[in-house]
């Protein structure tokens, strides 16, 4: 079974990079453009792991993570935050919202896969 990854990012560039990296590593990738769409797509796609950006229109990463964690069905899904913010404050907020881990952009494909492996069975 291929592992399913839901990526949520408003940047087409990053979405595509994630897609290529994840597909090359043998993951199945589902994309969403922002938090709102992420929550919509979540229903019915049941990903093994979620990778999300923080700064997004409509619903940002914090809101999205909270939304996932509030959902009885999906609250146990590991969520990795993908962000250029490397300062502790942002990380802390993401963690409080319920993020499992984080990856700092620009991401190294190997590290991305590594982080995903670390949170998924």
């Amino acid at each position, binding site marked *: 079974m291929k592992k399913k990854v839901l990526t949520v990012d408003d940047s087409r*560039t990053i979405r595509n990079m994630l897609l290529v*990296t994840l597909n090359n590593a043998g993951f199945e990738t589902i994309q969403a453009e922002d938090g709102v769409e992420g929550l919509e797509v979540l229903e019915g796609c049941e990903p093994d792991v979620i990778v999300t950006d923080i700064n997004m229109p409509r619903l940002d990463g914090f809101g999205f993570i909270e939304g996932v964690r509030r959902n009885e069905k999906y609250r*146990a899904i590991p969520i990795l935050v993908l962000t250029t913010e490397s300062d502790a404050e942002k990380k802390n907020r993401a963690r409080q919202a319920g993020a499992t*881990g984080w990856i700092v952009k620009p991401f190294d494909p190997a590290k991305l896969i590594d982080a995903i492996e670390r949170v998924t069975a």
Partner: protein
Amino acid sequence: MDMNEIKEIFFQECEEQLAELESGLLKLNDGDRDPETVNAVFRAVHSIKGGAGAFGLEELVAFAHVFETTLDCVRSNKLEPNQDVLKVMLKSADVLADLVTCSRDGGSVEESRTRGLVKELEALANGEALPAAEAPKAAKPVAAAPAKPTDDSGFQPIPFTFDGFGEEENVVEQFTYEVTFKPTRELYSKGNEAALLLRDLSRFGEMGIACDMDQLPALENMDPEASYFGWKISITTPKSEEEVRAVFEFAEWDCELEVKPAEASEGEELPMIPVPFDLSALDDEPAEPTPQTETAATEEASANVVKAVNAAVEKKESAAAAAAAAAAATQNNAAAAASSAGQTIRVDLDRVDRLINLVGELVINQAMLSQSVIENDNNGVSSINMGLEELQQLTREIQDSVMAIRAQPVKPVFQRMSRIVREVADMVGKQIRLVTEGENTEVDKTVIDKIAEPLTHMIRNAVDHGIESPEKREAAGKDPEGTIKLSAKHRSGRILIELQDDGGGINRERVKQKAIDNDLISPDANLSDEEIDNLIFAPGFSTADKISDISGRGVGMDVVKRSIQALGGRISISSRPGLGSTFTMSLPLTLAVLDGMVVTVAGQTLVVPLTAIVETLQPEASAIHSFGANQRLISIRNSFCPLVDVGRILNFRTNQANPVDGVALLVESEGGGQRALMVDAIQGQRQVVIKSLEANYTHVPGIAAATILGDGRVALILDVDAVVGASRGQSLKPEMSLAAAG
């Protein structure tokens, strides 16, 4: 998709983000304080930085980072976006745009420009007044931070197999650590899993593990979401203590963690209980190492993974299963795309162009079909004929719809102009406001791409020559801040772009003098105001006494005029002394089709663009007057109009045709005035598909392009302005003329 394609997407996205950034900043400049506007501006810069980081565009990242930091201050209400702040930000947006362009096309932005702005931005972020000259000492380290992943997890995965932990360990120094790990319930609630972390740790080296189950309550008291277990681990590995800690990085806050080097004393080993579960069972495919654990070059690694995945697919799954999986994936993607697409889709321009070309062929084909049916169906009542009429209408509708696909609002071009106004106004020390109107007016993409340059030049001109200096304006009782208005609207199947300034207007005395000095007109020429104004479009005319940096780049308004004409457009000027000038450009909505009048000249079929024709008439002998050696005039409603024999101008024939035998097409040309073009006969009106002559042959003076008629014959499309120009004595260059060219 490969990296280059993604990079292409990145630059496309940058363009969009930059447009977003600029329009957001301009909104803020107009007093908009909507937090969403600030957020959008911040996001734009943030997004550019993120993508740039991915491609290692460090210069871009560094600048975007500083910009972003300052914008973050605005976002968090630490910095009030007043006019001064916004001025710096708009300038920064310009520099950011330049950096993007440089990253894409090569070249570099002058360091002094970025450095100055970086200082200003940092000063704003630090809550200081704008630096007069000296940089604030407290400047944060700028370039370094974002370029490198600062909070590198420090992970150095080593190749590992389950049957031989750490094969290279004999060479490397080994350390033994004692790790105590007791997760709290939060760790699980955030989607972390203790077992996975332990598995990760187990990859570091030889590991002994003991589970502390002391806190496990009786079953009836158990909370399914609580955390009861703790672990004591002893691991021997070449890794440093930090690296071991890094495994628990994600869990740091949600567990009790102790990592310490094992005491050197032998024999005091921890009482190890056998691991209560098999760690390897966590892996789906225990035999395979996790994909991509090597830190080899990314691309190579991914290539290998692709191969590996492909091989695995071939081995394990039947072709059908693979196809099904692929289909499912596509479906999923499609579903995701569908919900995200909203109201627009992105289509490669090539595809649209291909479609437009095909529809062009369809139009020609349909016309050919109609013609041959008409020829064979004398009474014109057969059902084929009826069907054909419907087909004709449908074809026309398809054509219009396809053209509409390529229609784009002029907004991006207009937005670029506001930057030019800013820059040039800054350079010449004028205060100028750009007002835009009708930005959403749509026109064919090919037209948009081509109007940017002439428009830029005109804007520069308007700022440099049109608007007066603030002192002069005040002296004249005007607002010291000048206004340039750029507007677009549709009018009778064309797009009309107006550039209006409230400057001093054209100095006719000076223009006339200049024209005389440059031998453009004779000193005793008696010219109307309109004719004088239009002199600025004459080749080799430049009013600036000294070539300035801004508009005097070796091109004058004549070049602007020529590029507008090349688009099948017209440009004119009207000016009122002391009140300003208005340039009006009228352009076709598309460069792909044209409504034309099909005429015969000396046995050749030509197409005259319908937009150029004012009226057609059958001259009477009494209306024709000879004038000079071989000039003739035609009198139309008591005014005289020069007669131009198209056949002679194009060297189709050497003798003058008798005007009474032909038809006169009254055309309006740029540079003022009307001319009557003499042709032999009119065949009809038709929409024709424009086929570039230059792309297939070479530029032919007097001919704008070619087309294919209904009967399959090629007809040339007349360049009316060039023909009129030639009739004025600016001859079509003989060596380039049609006859010579063959």
